């Protein structure tokens, strides 16, 4: 199999309102250059926004920074969104979601579910050193 080209863009944003838009917009133009469909670009943007606002709201990180790494290969865009905050256990996500949450019009606790819905693959690596969410979108 031929070696795949791999290109990396990294972005550092301060934890501050609207800075998630910078991360989303950067993804949008990279995905556009990669010739992703518009609907997939919207999905990627929403997933990044939700991941960033989670880091903004919940990480309590001292350096107040989020690093986004965009790894571009021929037909996939991988995103790593990392903070140096307090981390969380995967059991934290115990609110109603899915059908039950929708029925109850549960207001919060949807972020991770939205991210999983929008992307093809999502991995959470969280601990004392912070949280890194790695997610993948294939060009359809």
């Amino acid at each position, binding site marked *: 199999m031929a070696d795949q080209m791999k290109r990396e863009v990294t972005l550092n944003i301060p934890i501050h309102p609207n800075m998630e838009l910078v991360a989303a917009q950067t993804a949008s133009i990279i995905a556009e250059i990669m010739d992703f469909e518009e609907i997939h670009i919207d999905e990627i943007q*929403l997933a990044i926004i*939700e991941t960033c606002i989670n880091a903004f709201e919940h990480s309590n990180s001292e350096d107040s920074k989020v690093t986004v790494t965009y790894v571009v290969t021929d037909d996939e865009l991988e995103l790593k969104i990392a903070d140096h905050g307090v981390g969380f256990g995967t059991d934290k996500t115990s609110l109603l979601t899915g059908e039950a949450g929708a029925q109850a019009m*549960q207001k919060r606790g949807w972020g991770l579910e939205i991210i999983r819905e929008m992307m093809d693959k999502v991995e959470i690596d969280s601990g004392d050193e912070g949280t890194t969410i790695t997610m993948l979108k294939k060009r359809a």
Partner: protein
Amino acid sequence: MATSFKLDTRTEDGYAVIQTDGYLNGPTAEQLAETAKDLMNQGYSTLVINLEKTRLVNSIGISILIEIIEFLDERGGGLHFCHLTPVIERTFKMMGLAQHAEIHRDEASATTNL
């Protein structure tokens, strides 16, 4: 720092239309909620929110939209959305908004039979 976000309001016979322009997050959805409550207090219990110029809505913004629905529900009002992108529509459905608010293609179909 704030993104440029705009709200346009139009009142018709029996309903009001709010047109958003820009990113719907916590603060901007709060603006929208204020406007919706004002209109409700002016006697417009049926509201149409036109999202044609909004491409991104985050989950905090949607949680505030749910509050608007609850506010209107309690007062016998009704909320209609139109011009949702496919991704916004999907997110609305995931979070249960489609149960208590109606989703339409455009303003014309949202306002027929109002």
